[in-house]
């Protein structure tokens, strides 16, 4: 009889282990898939920026540095995003992406602030449309980021909770990093230009 009890306990332990493991895998898959949504929107944003620069260039010849800063920030954001998409949740990659996105938002913010003083540019249809699309993409990024962070949170909680924490180290379920808001502190401080 004792043999059977031991067997029963053994089976229960194996089943519990498998359940916990599968649950962690599911949670990890979920947040990795959630990053794909951010990725789609960010790529859309990166595709819009060269068009924007093209339009703006004709009107703002004296603002070369600002334009170059935007292009530079965009390119480094593209590479930071590629790195992050390869390994969502990785602390280094997530922090790099946040920083690069912050730079890009800041550079774009300065560009839009400057563009206010060019009435011809403001009247340009393409410019208005691009600005609208960029801000709409921005909103979608924010929504997708929220979904990603929620998924990362439930994964992190899942791996730290007892008894899953006993196995999360053993099977390399490392802590995942949230994607912080891409708004740079500088941008938050920047006064809104109104006319």
């Amino acid at each position, binding site marked *: *009889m004792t043999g059977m009890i031991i*067997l029963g306990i053994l089976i229960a332990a194996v089943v519990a282990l498998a359940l916990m493991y599968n649950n962690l895998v599911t949670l990890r898959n979920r947040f990795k898939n959630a990053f794909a949504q951010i990725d*789609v929107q960010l790529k859309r944003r990166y595709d819009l920026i060269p068009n924007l620069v093209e339009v703006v260039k004709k009107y703002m010849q004296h603002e070369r540095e600002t334009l170059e800063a935007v292009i530079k920030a965009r390119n480094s954001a593209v590479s930071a995003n590629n790195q992050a998409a390869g390994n969502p949740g990785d602390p280094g990659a997530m922090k790099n992406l946040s920083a690069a996105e912050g730079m890009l938002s800041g550079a774009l913010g300065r560009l839009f602030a400057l563009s206010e003083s060019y009435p011809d540019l403001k009247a340009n249809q393409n410019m208005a449309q691009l600005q609208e699309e960029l801000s*709409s993409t921005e909103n979608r990024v924010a*929504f997708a980021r929220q*979904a990603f962070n929620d998924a990362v949170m439930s994964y992190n909680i899942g791996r730290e909770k007892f008894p899953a924490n006993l196995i999360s180290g053993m099977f390399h379920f490392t802590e995942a990093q949230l994607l912080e808001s891409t708004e740079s502190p500088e941008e938050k401080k920047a006064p809104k230009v109104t006319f």
Partner: protein
Amino acid sequence: MNFFEHQQESKQKTALLAGCFALAVAAIILSVYAVIMSVIFSQNSDSGAAPAPWFNPDVFTGVAITVLMIILGGSLFKIIAMGRGGPYIAESLGGRPISQATTDVDELKFIHVVEEMALASGISVPAAYVLDREPGINAFAAGYRPEDAVVAVTDGCLRRLSRDELQGVVAHEFSHILNGDMRLNIRLIGMISGILVIASIGNILLRTSSNSRKNGMPFIALGLAFIVIGYVGVLAARIIQSAISRQREFLADASAVQFTRNPSGIAQALKKIGGFAKGSKIRSPRASETSHMFFSTAISSLFATHPALTERIQRIDPSFSREFPTAGDTLKIMTPDPSLVSGLAANRNFRGFQPEGVSQSVGTMDGGHVKFSLMLLDAIPGAVRAELNDPLGASAVVFALLLDTNETEKKNQMDALSKMMPEPVGSLTENLHAAVNSLDARLKLPLLDLSLPALRRMSDRQYQDFLRAVKILAEADGKLSLFEFTLQIIIRSRLEAAFHPATARVPRKNIDDLTDDIIRLISRLAMEGHADPAAEKNAFSAGMNILPLPGPFEMGNPSFQEVETAILQLANAAPGIRKSVLDACAGCILFDRQVTAEEAELVRAVSYALDLPTPPFLEGGRLKTEG
């Protein structure tokens, strides 16, 4: 056969399975008992004690309970794990979800085919997955219920098949979804892995006892016996599984031809598999347990899960010469029989529409429906279509569907919405409202369905916010139409499965217990669209008389809350009851035979809410695309 008969058959197959399973378990218990008794005998004869009787009730109960616990535990564990829904199964096989926003042409083609088939059949658009690391041509559908279903194709399938062939394959998978095969599959998998646990225990016994020298022998014998019993049991289960699985494959092939009205599509796909060196092989090590869910043989084994390719092709295309085209060959395209392709009846009125036919059409579709769903997709304005690609835009589309046309009511709703959701949603909804509102009535349910894949990608928290906003929009004005009210129920029932995977529901089998719920629903439907009380009464009795219930019935005046509870109760009823209820609803709504597109869509919305996949009604002519 119709939808209900297929469902019934699937149930009977499950019952048959349960019977075979019980027999197998009994056989296993007896064998294990025999093995243990012989071990005891051999021990006793060594020590020279008196031989024990052959039947020892204590040992027998012990063995029976342990074996039952092990097998049922193993099966339940697997069924629960699989019951977490299609995404779980697809991801465990290495699947990657793809969305509308993809830039890959082949992926986009696949998504569009899935959308067309879903709209044509009336089930919610399933999530689309690609198995990137699989070069073979294969596909599968998985999930516990149609609402959490996924359709997955291998990379080889995606890249090598033409659109028509892909459509044939996807139609085949939709047949599995519609005919209840997915649940059958999950039970099969559960049963086999339960028996497999016995063999695994044998393995463990063998390994642990070969390490310890003392008293090792009986345990080694026991371990070996367990392994043999386990594998013989699995073998028996595989035979049952393959017998059932092959029949369902023929049914799915036949349905695919019926759905697409294009026998050449699926036939060519099968021929390509036959002529392709990698065939339909799946490399993932987890494919063995899910092998019978695939479109074609995923792993070669002694017991074929699928009928032979040549036999499948010959049933579709009798002229097939048994010679497969090799991959390089240009394929001869069979031209579809023109008599099979029915044109859409143009400009006909809904007058010819028969309420009696509604339940007959549930779970079916044909080439006409697929063509019609293409028209529906075309008629959705590009600006609205673009919003369906991401969760934020998709939720704005759903909110726009729920907005009232009355300006003051709309303002109330918008105020409530802007308090609930982050800012851009409000303005997006506002922008979309005009476009959504002017759409043909028949586009509203498809639009809702198309928004689901994006909405499923919200996080739990975002989903809760979204649900609350939907509820508030619906309740912001007390005069919300029944159609919009039903939309709200559909949204919840179709999305819930993605966020809170299937909880086993015990179907209500007795229609008498549901009489009050049916009266509430039919009363509400009768009140809709009939101005004077006499007409309401007539519509009510027209509906109730269809039901196999003894009258007379008193028409009530239920609140929306009561109707909602009623619908949720009825959605949980056995398929036969839901069929009668749908017939009664159709009889009530279409009672005066003056059927408008709005009324027909209300019937369809009710059938959605009752969890019955009803294809679009083709009568009624051209779609109104603007103004």
